[in-house]
């Protein structure tokens, strides 16, 4: 039994934690929430320069020795720091190209994505439920038409991976965003530190990714990948929100002693801790499934997505509660977590779809059913 990351991966995580701690302190996140989105640009460039963005990319295309486990742990640290960066969207597009692109597409796109000189994004969520939010994308003669929103980093990215209906079925396509037939409009979000845009395609040039008609299956796999990375971002955020609540509970006095001494607060924070640890188990299992390309990945992704969403949502909400009235002010940082937790809860398929995916997989036992029995 070795359910632990390698020492090397842990060392990368420790470095990443230092990096985000120094370069992405909460005041920077606050600036981003207040609309100064340029604050994030140097951070992205440095991530590229340091080789972090190349994690999970092979050496031939700009990789520098970091793999998918490191990609997961960098997400955990980015999440802990609330980094205002489109890491998951970027890496999901990277994975789409690495897995499903032609040799020419990989050679053309992966190196600039590995060093961050181009930001990629993707939009794989089912069409939004609200009226007029989305119109399905259609592909005809390699030209794509339709509207998707909200697309993370849609205004700043150079490239998007999306699903489109072609005459031969649903397919994945790659669209360069810097072209006249793509209109990009920034849309306001509940977490402005993670800018999103509406993308309107009016016969924009597009390249297919992967086999014709395989779009839905390929998108499923990419959503699993994204769910696990998002889970790590949520795990880091949940840990940070718990740490913030705990620290405050140790310095705030009420009724003659620190509030962290009262069981109402102690037990609440343990409830947060329990959810965070359950999420940690799921995320690590997700990392294992990604790194080994395991057949259990759909269930692992669903578990990570559900557990980490619950953990971060609960941690962010109870962090506000522990702070009392201060927690509802702009001045306190609680709302940074509260915003991010809600945003990340909504980034892909609805949670009930993930529940369904998990129940579907329940016929497939965990790695060793006998171990599960005695746990």
């Amino acid at each position: 039994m070795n359910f632990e990351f390698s020492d090397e991966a842990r060392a990368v995580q420790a470095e990443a934690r230092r990096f985000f701690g120094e370069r992405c302190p909460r005041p920077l996140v606050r600036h981003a929430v207040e609309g100064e989105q340029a604050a994030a640009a140097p951070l992205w460039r440095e991530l590229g320069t340091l080789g972090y963005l190349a994690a999970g990319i092979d050496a031939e295309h700009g990789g520098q020795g970091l793999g998918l486990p490191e990609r997961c742990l960098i997400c955990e640290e980015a999440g802990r720091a609330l980094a205002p960066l489109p890491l998951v969207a970027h890496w999901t597009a990277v994975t789409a190209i690495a897995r499903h692109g032609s040799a020419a597409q990989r050679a053309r796109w992966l190196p600039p994505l590995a060093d961050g000189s181009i930001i990629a994004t993707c939009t794989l969520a089912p069409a939004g439920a609200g009226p007029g939010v989305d119109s399905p994308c259609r592909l005809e003669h390699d030209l794509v038409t339709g509207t998707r929103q909200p697309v993370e980093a849609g205004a700043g990215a150079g490239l998007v991976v999306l699903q489109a209906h072609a005459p031969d079925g649903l397919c994945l396509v790659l669209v360069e965003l810097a072209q006249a037939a793509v209109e990009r409009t920034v849309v306001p979000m509940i977490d402005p530190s993670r800018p999103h845009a509406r993308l309107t395609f009016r016969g924009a040039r597009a390249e297919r990714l992967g086999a014709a008609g395989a779009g839905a299956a390929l998108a499923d796999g990419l959503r699993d990948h994204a769910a696990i990375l998002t889970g790590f971002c949520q795990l880091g955020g949940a840990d940070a929100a718990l740490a913030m609540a705990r620290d405050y509970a140790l310095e705030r006095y009420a009724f003659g002693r620190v509030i962290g001494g009262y069981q109402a607060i102690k037990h609440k924070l343990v409830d947060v801790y329990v959810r965070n640890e359950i999420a940690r188990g799921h995320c690590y299992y997700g990392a294992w499934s990604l790194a080994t390309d395991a057949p259990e990945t759909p269930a692992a992704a669903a578990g990570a997505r559900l557990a980490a969403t619950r953990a971060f949502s609960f941690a962010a909400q109870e962090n506000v509660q522990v702070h009392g009235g201060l927690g509802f002010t702009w001045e306190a940082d609680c709302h940074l977590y509260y915003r991010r937790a809600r945003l990340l809860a909504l980034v892909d398929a609805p949670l009930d779809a993930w529940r369904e995916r998990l129940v579907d997989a329940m016929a497939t036992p965990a790695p060793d059913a006998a171990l599960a029995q005695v746990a």
Partner: protein
Amino acid sequence: MDFNDTPAEAAFRAEVRRWLAANAPPADALGYDAAALPAARAWQARKAAAGYAAITWPVALGGRGGRTIEEVIYRQEESRYGFPGSHFAIGLGICLPTLMSYATPEQVARHVRPALYGEEIWCQLFSEPAAGSDVAGIRTRAQRDGEDWVVNGQKCWTSGAEYADFGLLLARTDAGVPKHRGLTVFFVDMKSPGIRVRPIRQSDGGSEFSEVFFTDLHIPDCQRLGGVGEGWKVVLTTLMHERNLVGGNKMWPTPAEVLDMTSRLTLDRAPASRDLRVRARIADWEVDHRGLVYLYYRALTSLGRGQAPGPEQALHKLVSCSQGQEIACFLMDLMGPAGAMAPAALGSAWASVEKTWWWSSAQRIAGGTDEILKNIIAERVLGLPADVRVDKDVPFSELAEIQRRTA
């Protein structure tokens, strides 16, 4: 990352598997009541002779000198046979390790082998009617009388008291000092005059625990474990042994089993297992269930590296007992009014649901209540302050007065 045994662990597992296949009795031959004792003793003796009864104990004491991970592997393999809880777990897991720390070598030598071979059974005499979570608040008194101690008082929730041969007893030897400082631990022959055992009738109608009454029970001073007034230190040692027991028996239906059960219940004229509301509930339980399995893998990883596991055990208890309560009520709810009917009317397949309903409520209390476990995690893991203790520096004999004033 991988979920495989190391070569040494795999070899041990294979050896255990072979041995169990050749030696394990059929599960229905064993039981957890007094009637099942002869079969349980025979099985225990066979395990002890093969070196599997106390894998981590030193060879000199009849153990195997093995690692904790080997103990865990043995339990995993034995758990495949679906045996009920063991009559010997408290003795071998808690009492004998405490003896090894505090008794004379002669006493250890006298007691280890019979316990190991299932010839003598031990029980733990800590909890009292007025001291459960606050176990340092016990009232059973032990007074010095020459070479003996004379004990008067009452214990409760004692597992196996009706058939135990020896007990580990926590008593108050000095009521004039604050509660933690006036305690002393003894071991006692349960067949001594002055001990009366009475079964407790539980809320579910069963009787699996006892009350134990002491009336002028004489214990020789040589059966004292640790110094006079140092009983709390001994208790902490025993609790540490208790926490080293990683893993446990499966107590409730797993979410996968619940899904299967709902396929035989009807909701809106279709199998309930196809209903999205039902599936959503099951999915959320599965998230917790799998999460606990993964944390168990983390604990095993630590054990395999010779490190102490974290608070996984407390976490497991907190999450799984509440889940048992939810699952039982959910299945009963799905039945409608018929869910209120007893297994005698609904058939034996329903017995596990009713049992889960009762025992999940018991397990949220036994071995550390949810509230005490949360305090422990809050203080030891999150570093939050201990509760205010109004009884901390007050002589035990004056506590009643304090309680009157603060009521």
